[in-house]
């Protein structure tokens, strides 16, 4: 039992270290940043992990030493190994108070620094011109995403396109429950709330398709409230915008109200935005959905893991983007 325990403790001490080494090789979403915001957060996380590993190594080392050396029946124990009346030591107690304090200071400085930095659009790399942020209103309703591009006058449901190397200014709000917009490879999350507007800056440096989702629990359809981000070059993005403007239908208020009903829905695009009827991020817009669909929120979809929006569209059997509510 004894030796097994020591082995365990040593193993425990090494496990985090080896795992970090191991995992820096593979691509955990948060540790695989594809834009400056995620990069800032990645740098901060890596910086903090060094301190944390230091603390873990020191404490685990001291712990292993004590437990091994001061066991009652360690062979070769000496009289001098036992001092029941030792009650403290001012010097060492001051040392081990000051060191954590210094570590906290060392962690606070870059934290505060990055907090202020993340409130602004990411700065362009040296030598490149600073581009105006692209404004996208990201609105949630149980359990879907609306992305409205006011400048371009288009709106998408459950996916979005963004140009690379240009800051995106998300205006976050919700039609009903509180949610959060999170695209791990582009940066951390922020809440969407009804009746108020949050601003979140993100940016993609590399082209690609990134997973995004609502990360704040908001009821039955939460798990399926995901979307895809298509980050593409300026030209590709522009041609996508033009195509959407010319080929997608306009969004009528009736259709939008229908979409606001709690439920899952498939991807869609429109050549106008819902901001014309309502901005859920304002105090006037906060009860828009609740007023219209109050009685529907209690209904269940009976959602199982292998189902997604399509399964619920079939039931309705029309190509309106209606959600299914029993």
């Amino acid at each position: 039992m004894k030796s097994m325990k020591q082995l365990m403790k040593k193993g425990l001490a090494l496990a985090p270290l080896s795992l970090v080494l191991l995992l820096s090789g593979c691509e955990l979403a948060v540790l695989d940043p594809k834009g400056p915001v995620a990069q800032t957060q990645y740098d901060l996380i890596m910086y903090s992990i060094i301190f944390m590993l230091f603390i873990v190594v020191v404490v685990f080392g001291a712990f292993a030493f004590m437990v091994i050396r001061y066991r009652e029946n360690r062979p070769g124990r000496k009289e001098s190994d036992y001092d029941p009346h030792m009650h403290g030591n001012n010097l060492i107690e001051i040392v081990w108070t000051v060191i954590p304090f210094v570590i906290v200071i060392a962690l606070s400085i870059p934290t505060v620094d990055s907090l202020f930095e993340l409130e602004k659009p990411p700065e362009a790399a040296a030598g490149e011109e600073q581009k105006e942020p692209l404004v996208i209103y990201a609105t949630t309703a149980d359990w879907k995403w609306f992305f409205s591009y006011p400048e371009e006058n288009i709106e998408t449901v459950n996916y979005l396109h963004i140009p690379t190397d240009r800051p995106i200014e998300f205006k976050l709000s919700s039609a009903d429950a509180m949610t959060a917009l999170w695209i791990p490879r582009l940066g951390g999350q922020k809440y969407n709330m009804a009746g108020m507007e949050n601003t979140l800056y993100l940016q993609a440096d590399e082209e690609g398709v990134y997973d995004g989702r609502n990360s704040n629990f908001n009821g039955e359809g939460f798990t399926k409230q995901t979307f895809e981000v298509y980050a593409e070059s300026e030209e590709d993005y522009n041609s996508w915008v033009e195509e959407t403007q010319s080929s997608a239908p306009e969004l009528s208020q009736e259709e939008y109200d229908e979409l606001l009903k709690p439920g899952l829905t498939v991807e869609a695009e429109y050549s106008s935005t819902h901001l014309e009827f309502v901005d859920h991020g304002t105090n006037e817009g906060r009860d828009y959905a609740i007023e219209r669909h109050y009685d529907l929120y209690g209904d269940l979809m009976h959602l199982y893991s292998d189902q997604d929006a399509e399964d619920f569209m079939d039931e309705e059997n029309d190509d309106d983007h209606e959600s299914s509510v029993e």
Partner: protein
Amino acid sequence: MQLDEFFVTGEPLIYGGMVSIALVTIAILFILTYFKKWGWLWREWLTTVDHKKIGVMYILSALAMLFRGGVDAMMMRVQLAFPNMNFLNAQHYDEIFTTHGTVMIIFMAMPFLIGLMNIIVPLQIGARDFAFPYLNALSFWSFLFGAMLFNISFVIGGSPDAGWTSYTPLAGAAMSPGPGQNFYLMGLQLSGIGTLATGINLMVTILKMRAPKMKMFQMPIFTWSTLITSFIIVFAFPILTVALALMTLDRIFGAQFFTLTGEGMPMMWANLFWMWGHPEVYIVILPAFGIFSEVICTFARKQLFGYKAMVWAIILIAGLSFLVWVHHFFTMGAGAFVNSVFSISTMLIAVPTGVKIFNWLGTLYKSKIKNTVAMMWALAFIPSFVIGGVTGVMLGMASADYQFHNTYFLVAHFHYVLIAGTVFACFSGLVFWYPKMFGHKLNERIGKWSFWFFVIGFHVCFFPQYFVGLDGMPRRVFTIIPEWMPLNIISTIGAFGMGAGFAIFVFCILYSYRYSEREKSGDSWGDGRTLEWATPTPVPFYNFATLPEIDSQDAYVKLKEEGRTTFEEDKLEPIHMPNNTGQPIIMMGFLFFASFGLVFEWMWMAIAFLIAGLIMMVVRSFDYDEGYHVEVDEIKRIERSARGL
């Protein structure tokens, strides 16, 4: 309301649950009747005001709740092991993570610790009971009825499904109609009365009822941590009470405090919840720190290193715990300045916490470690908790928290602190004080098996969750994508390891009841340092025949050196004790039915039972029961037989 709306229908798991609840109830009723135990149950337990018996009832209930919460956990882990599992659907999963979280924090962790406090604190300070024994019984019944109310939602009416945090507007009447969320509100409200009363009770007990001459800075460290915890309870619980009351008004009476309509402020709930919620997590960790300190000193056979620093660290942590609540919603967009302030205050908590860790290591330095099961739980706590602590600091760095928040990284953090802290402490403390409570030890060999299963299972279960969180897996999803599968399978295996550990622990209790040697001395481990070990085992109902004067820390070490006991025949005097009473259980029973009425919005029922409860309070106000005296001869007889004189 139709009967099929009243009972939850359509789920095989729930039918299974109903059948097993019915069977267990019938079995208990049968056994009680067959062995003619009803009178005994009523006289000895249901009407008792003895802190030791109340403590035992707390701990038994907490173990039952640990079982319930554990079954929830297993079901979630099964569902999450593989992508596309259809073991639970989304709605069922939501209900289960909600009840799991609420049960574990409110109905398991807190009552378990309060149970240990109940039994041990009066013994540690040389008191004969709580300051207010009647109130103590009231607290227990309020907790138990609150817990039962919450738990019957499983079969009647439907469980709450908005998370243990119950954020509005999701948890409001519009988006969560029906009785489910009301069960949460009323269950917590009812048991909250008891918690608050216990806080006041313990505070007064510790401040006013210490043995003659025992100074504050001579109190055992578990008593200290209990005192500070009581202060946190008294300051934090009223916030919860108010928040719950406001949400109840919203849901049942159509008020608009947290609604989207009518200028309500949904975000205010998050603020109020965490102004209580963060102190709450310290309510469940500080007593755990106290337990570890006692166990480590005892089995290291050494005085606590840096006693004063330990006490001040607890006080500092308690103070800071009220200044960090915003770290639970850094992502709400309060701005860089607010987040900076709360980041720094959050990380500052790590300093006194670190001091405590180093002081425990200092206590181990030049010690003589005896490897008992209680000590193993305490030792396993140190490295495990450090992992939880450092990741807590990472979460405290707000700009990094934007990436960790709402993910399994966070889930791993709080399970590392709550399980390696609170749960290990409950096991450690229970094993350590078991002989004092039940007159025999728990079997050490079986105890070690349960320890290893649980501790290894715990790390296997939760360590991978840090990484799956970094890979973008949010908390509260009911199914996973294939990328997250390997780590989730490992996690599920670990969870079953913990389940096995718990099962072995329960087996250990049954086995030891039957086979363990009965205790002959009061100082079961031979290394007791504090006053509880000075009492004989079983502890007489009045605890101390005579109260020794205390002039040092580790009072019992000194008594042993001087050859003194808590039975000095020449100093015996009659002891004043309170009478048993059935009022607390009846009063709380009425409030239980009143709450049940509110849950279903049956106002006639709520009002009728509320009036009944008020009448009980009036009855209590005119209650002139002064208790009774235990005569000197009787004390002599009890002490002589208990001490084998």
